[in-house]
């Protein structure tokens, strides 16, 4: 399991290294190299799991199964592309004086630490450690969000910290209760918090405790997922942090939080034999989709708008997992993948656009297509993809979710129809105005070279591929993971 240790160790080492050299000019390249190494290690790890099946490491402290290994790969991949994106991005930010060397050091170090904590949260077998990693990820991102030290970014970071801190504290309470229930079955020793053990005995767990535990865990991790009405930190944090951070927040952190929630749901479903977890997830998922759609209508700040779009999509995934069953679970997992690919791509494009325009206010960004066709198309295609236009993958998952919901939970479909319609109208109205038309951007603004657009198009390409062709091994992962989640 050296691959696993490498996957976790490289970013940890990277965090320390960058803490020392992160302000130097070559730190950006090191960042890319570290992320690439992590991604390589994750690939090797994936290959192991795919060929040899689920595995433990470090005496059951880590457990890799299809559900998390696919998220590990995804995380490492998006981590890598974001690092590639952030290389020229941060150079320009430094040029503009927004990033000073100390801030760069903090940024690079925390970026690696953040990757490390997320990978840890995904791979750990211990529900307690999962909590610890989630909290650590919060801390790392709080620093990342506040890195510009502006009033707005401080405010956002403060809210992020307090709201997520309080939220996740509830998850800790839930974990304690979970431990309490497990202890009665497994005993105080013997790793009562290890997920594999819990999963094995889940039918014997006490329903009363588990019910309460899930309520707390749901509130806790739900806060990090960004479920309405626990979502309030999310738009602020996305809008005020550096764009690469927005990309990984939306693309990765939310996924990991949802992953934690899913693990809890599996246990709860096993223990309760009632659809409590499903109902909660469906209800809050739907509420999130609907509310976020209406929030989207009033946005003026481009990053804030896409942050709400993330809430909408996380709501949709939560709803899908709530519906359950092989098809909806499959769709949820697929949606997780494509959403992180496409949403991070959008944030990359947004990053380029805001650097080009020098503002995040959408009314001041016009005619991107004229200013730079590559940028205009990336923005346009990204937005269309995230809005569920085929042949991009988001459509594939929305297709499965909606068609399944139509027969399983028909009451929800009018809301989904309304929400998806409103969201489309809201986002597309803005994006079209930003991309089309005559430009108002300064002629001599920051110009990005063609290679700078590579991560965007790579993500869009992958998202496109998942819409019309899902490779068999990926399909197999999804199926195994969906089956594991049961229904």
């Amino acid at each position, binding site marked *: 399991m050296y691959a696993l240790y490498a996957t976790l160790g490289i970013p940890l080492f990277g965090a320390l290294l960058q803490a020392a050299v992160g302000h130097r000019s070559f730190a950006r390249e090191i960042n890319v190299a570290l992320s690439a190494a992590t991604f390589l290690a994750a690939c090797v790890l994936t290959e192991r799991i795919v060929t040899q099946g689920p595995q433990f490491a470090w005496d059951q402290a880590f457990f890799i199964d299809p559900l998390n290994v696919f998220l590990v790969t995804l995380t490492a991949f998006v981590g890598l592309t974001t690092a590639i994106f952030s290389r020229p991005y941060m150079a320009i930010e430094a040029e503009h004086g927004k990033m000073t060397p100390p801030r760069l050091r903090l940024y690079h170090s925390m970026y690696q630490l953040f990757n490390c904590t997320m990978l840890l949260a995904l791979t750990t077998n211990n529900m307690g450690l999962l909590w610890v990693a989630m909290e650590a990820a919060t801390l790392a991102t709080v620093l990342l969000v506040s890195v510009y030290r502006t009033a707005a970014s401080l405010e956002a970071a403060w*809210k992020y910290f307090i709201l997520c801190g309080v939220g996740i504290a509830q998850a800790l309470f839930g974990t304690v209760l979970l*431990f309490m229930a497990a202890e*009665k079955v497994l005993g105080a020793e013997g790793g009562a918090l290890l997920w594999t053990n819990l999963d094995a005995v889940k039918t014997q767990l006490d329903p009363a405790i588990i019910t309460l535990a899930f309520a707390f865990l749901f509130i806790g991790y739900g806060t990090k997922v960004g479920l309405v009405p626990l979502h309030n930190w999310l738009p602020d944090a996305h809008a005020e942090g550096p764009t690469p951070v927005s990309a990984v927040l939306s693309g990765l952190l939310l996924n990991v939080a949802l992953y934690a929630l899913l693990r809890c749901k599996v246990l709860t479903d096993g223990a309760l034999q009632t659809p409590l977890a499903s109902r909660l997830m469906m209800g809050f998922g739907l509420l999130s989709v609907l509310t976020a759609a209406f929030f989207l209508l009033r946005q003026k700040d481009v990053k804030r708008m896409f942050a709400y779009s993330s809430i909408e999509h996380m709501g949709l995934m939560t709803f899908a997992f709530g519906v359950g069953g092989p098809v909806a679970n499959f769709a949820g997992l697929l949606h997780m993948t494509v959403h992180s690919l496409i949403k991070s791509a959008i944030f990359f494009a947004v990053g380029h656009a805001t650097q080009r325009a020098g503002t995040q206010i959408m009314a001041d960004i016009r005619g991107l297509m004229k200013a730079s066709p590559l940028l205009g198309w990336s923005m346009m295609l990204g937005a269309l993809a995230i809005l569920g236009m085929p042949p991009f993958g988001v459509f594939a998952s929305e297709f499965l979710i909606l068609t399944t919901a139509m027969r399983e939970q028909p009451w929800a479909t009018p809301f989904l129809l309304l929400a998806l319609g409103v969201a489309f109208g809201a986002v597309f109205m803005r994006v079209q105005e930003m991309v089309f038309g005559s430009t108002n951007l300064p002629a001599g603004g920051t110009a990005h070279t063609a290679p700078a657009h590579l991560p965007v198009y790579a993500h869009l390409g992958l998202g496109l591929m998942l819409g019309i062709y899902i490779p068999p091994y990926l399909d197999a992962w999804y199926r195994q993971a969906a089956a594991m989640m049961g229904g």
Partner: protein
Amino acid sequence: MQGMFGQLINLFASVLLLLSFAMLAQRRVVTLIDLFMLQGATLVAATTVVGVVTHQPHLYLSAALTLLLKVALIPWLLHRVIRQLNVRWDVETLINIPTTLLLGIVLVIFAFNLALPISQLSSSVARGTLGIALAGVLLSFLMMITRSKAVSQVIGFLSMENCLFFAATSATYGMPLVVELGIALDVLVGILILGVFMFQLRERFDSLDIRHIEKLKED
């Protein structure tokens, strides 16, 4: 013996609840920190007692950690912060204090009611106190809602953490060590970050009143 220790734990639990109420009622930030320190101390004592009863050595470690962190380090840090930032008073709460206290009582009843059926299932000597831990969490939550100063919000947050620890101790015999260590580390880093933030907030907003940091909103 067992019974006496049980009563001792119940006593500590009651003290914890009382302190929570006291924090809810307290306007002065300095006193708030002191109360928080006391809460930490109570937690240490409770943990130690449970450790003695159950002969679980890692509970001692946990108690020591708590002592170090929450009785010594964090209060010291907080004191330093408020001295340097010159915030002594939490001038006004967002909801007036009697109302808050009434709400608090409702919450306690709710929490007890919620915890009652579950605590019966616990094998811990301190099982009766799960409700109190839950009540403490909710009270801290309430305090965070009603306070208008960043510092008092942080203290509320920390107090919540304390109650969670107490819950871990009372419902089970403490979480596995690695988890406890992780949590402690998180708390430590968190409070450091918060401390730094408070200075920066002060620098940017000229105030630690959270009513000044509400620029980011939908309009």
